[in-house]
């Protein structure tokens, strides 16, 4: 039972059709997520990392079925949830919750904290009255807020406290999976540290699994067990967190890690400076990263899409420079 990963995503794709002209004759398919596969073991944290436009939030929302995927399969707890609907989906959703980037925007300003945290308890468990109040108080305590905050409104809180409210609301239905979409990028460092510690404690306490979406690599290194790097909707590298940071194989991963400004003036690390930027209108053929790649280009970089292959145990890379032993051509 516990061998089955909590969340498994197989060949997930989400395509958006863009109409080229006003008359709709030329249509263009934008692949926001392109055949992404990963699995998230119980009680672990998988980091989805990428620049803006790489599709990381779309994957998170597809996993919850907040966005309908174009193709692919989503397995939650071994059950295929790609096509379930109605009450079944709603019941499943109580096992998976989402926490958003902007705490202020994700809390209803006209509801008190008690109402915000209590709402999922009513929706999923039909709890109300005194019993709901008690549960909310308990949740406030768990996330480090005080009982007297029950009747306050979101605007009376600082960003860090608002994010705690968001976490309490997500925890209300006792989920197994939390999808954290940039949970600390709107917060200051001193507060970010508090929230990261809270997330770590909650994971230990409730055996939660996290899908952690972030662009901040130092936070990812701190909190995640596994990391998937995304570039234009494709996974370019997937491995354990230490492997990614100490032995990155894909040129993009290497550049990204070298570009983090280390808070150490003597951190004499050679920076790989990428040319250009992430262009959503990439060529249809070849490796999506090829136009920015700083490593010597192979002939087939611009014609063949590199497959995601396992170069060593639990380390997948999608790059022509690292063909798996079975697939190497010459």
């Amino acid at each position, binding site marked *: 039972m516990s061998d089955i990963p909590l969340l498994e995503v197989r060949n997930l794709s989400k395509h958006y059709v863009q109409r080229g002209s006003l008359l709709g004759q030329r249509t263009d398919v934008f692949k926001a997520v392109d055949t992404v596969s990963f699995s998230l073991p119980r009680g672990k944290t998988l980091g989805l990392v990428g620049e803006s436009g790489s599709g990381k939030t779309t994957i998170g929302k597809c996993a919850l079925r907040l966005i309908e995927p174009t193709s692919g399969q989503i397995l939650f707890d071994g059950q295929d949830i790609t096509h379930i609907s109605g009450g079944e989906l709603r019941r499943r959703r109580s096992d998976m919750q989402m926490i958003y980037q902007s705490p202020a925007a994700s809390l209803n300003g006209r509801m008190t904290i008690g109402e915000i945290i209590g709402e999922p308890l009513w929706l999923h468990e039909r709890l109300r009255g005194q019993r709901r109040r008690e549960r909310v108080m308990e949740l406030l305590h768990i996330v480090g807020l005080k009982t007297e905050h029950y009747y306050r409104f979101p605007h009376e809180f*600082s960003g860090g406290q608002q994010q705690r409210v968001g976490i309490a609301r997500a925890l209300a239905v006792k989920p197994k999976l939390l999808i954290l979409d940039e949970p600390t990028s709107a917060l200051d460092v001193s507060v970010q540290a508090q929230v990261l510690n809270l997330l770590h404690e909650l994971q230990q306490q409730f055996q939660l699994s996290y899908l952690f979406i972030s662009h901040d690599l130092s936070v990812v290194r701190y909190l995640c067990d596994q990391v998937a790097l995304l570039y234009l909707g494709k996974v370019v590298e997937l491995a354990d967190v230490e492997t990614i940071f100490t032995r990155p194989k894909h040129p993009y991963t290497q550049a990204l890690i070298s570009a983090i400004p280390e808070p150490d003036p003597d951190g004499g690390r050679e920076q790989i400076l990428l040319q250009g930027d992430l262009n959503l209108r990439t060529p249809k053929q070849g490796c999506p990263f090829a136009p920015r790649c700083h490593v010597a280009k192979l002939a087939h970089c611009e014609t063949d899409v590199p497959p995601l292959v396992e170069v060593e145990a639990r380390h997948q890379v999608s790059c022509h420079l690292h063909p798996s032993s079975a697939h190497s051509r010459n």
Partner: protein
Amino acid sequence: MLLDIQNLHLEFRTFDGVAKVLAGVDLQMQRGDVVGLVGETGCGKSMTALAIPNLIPMPPGVITEGRVLFDGEDVLAKSPAELQRFRARHLGMIFQDPTTNLNPVFSIREQLVDSVLYQRMDQQTVPGRWRGWMPSARQIRSDAHRRAVELMSLVGIPDGERRIEDYPHQFSGGMRQRVLIAMALAGEPDLLIADEPTTALDVTIQAQILRLIDSLVKRLGLSVLIITHNLGVVAQTCQKVAVMYAGKVIETAPVRELFKNPRHPYTQGLLKALPTSHTRRGELEGIPGTIPNLTRPPEGCRFHPRCSHVMEVCRQVVPPGHRGDSDHITYCHLYGEER
């Protein structure tokens, strides 16, 4: 000394009372310095930067005390006309969000040429009888256009001749920030104020922009004031750092000294709160508590409610600056008594 901010006090008169946004900011910059101004949301770092070109909205803002000296001249005492000339000739500013600082309905050419013309404002007034002697409006415009293209290549936008006709939406975030840097450089400023220049950008683009600022400092002899909350950015680009908390500079030091030997408890806390490659999970230390409400700031040292070394004196007396060795100034009661 290029910039000398002395004991600057700024208040905002709001409906909730008087917010004491800046409470005695001291900041010095020499020509050619790259200084980082670091602090969390609401600590007054942007307000300090806006005080340099005297751009603080007044009302509701009131500067109650202090001076801002730029090259020895008091900026706050200048008349509006002098201020306009001063801003055009000596200052360049870039902001966090490159998208909202460009007008979407004008091409880059129009906006960039405008800023070049603005800084040549007094040269281009051609009164009637001098018309034959002075360059014509067309001449001025084509000069400005040439200069604009030059600026584009200076900030590393390839194919400037053609791209200058494009509109802001045709540029990516990083390229827009480059355009804004080009605008800021139009007047060959002495000081470039960069307010969170890379916060809205991805890391790989951030690295490009920081590299660009670095090369401009070397090539043009610019002085730069970088305002950021990212200590990593400071460590990689600045020579000197000033750390702000709740409207006061609490520590200034050369960059190596600050990261090696932080003295103020807030700076120490800030550095410990950053996850680095050596931090084990669950061992990250935040700073307890939250930033104070500036309409009712704590007495004495404004950091004392969150400080782990709090003493009786901290609750009553604002700590004076204590100069340790090598330009390391700390505004904390822990230092100074012994010396």
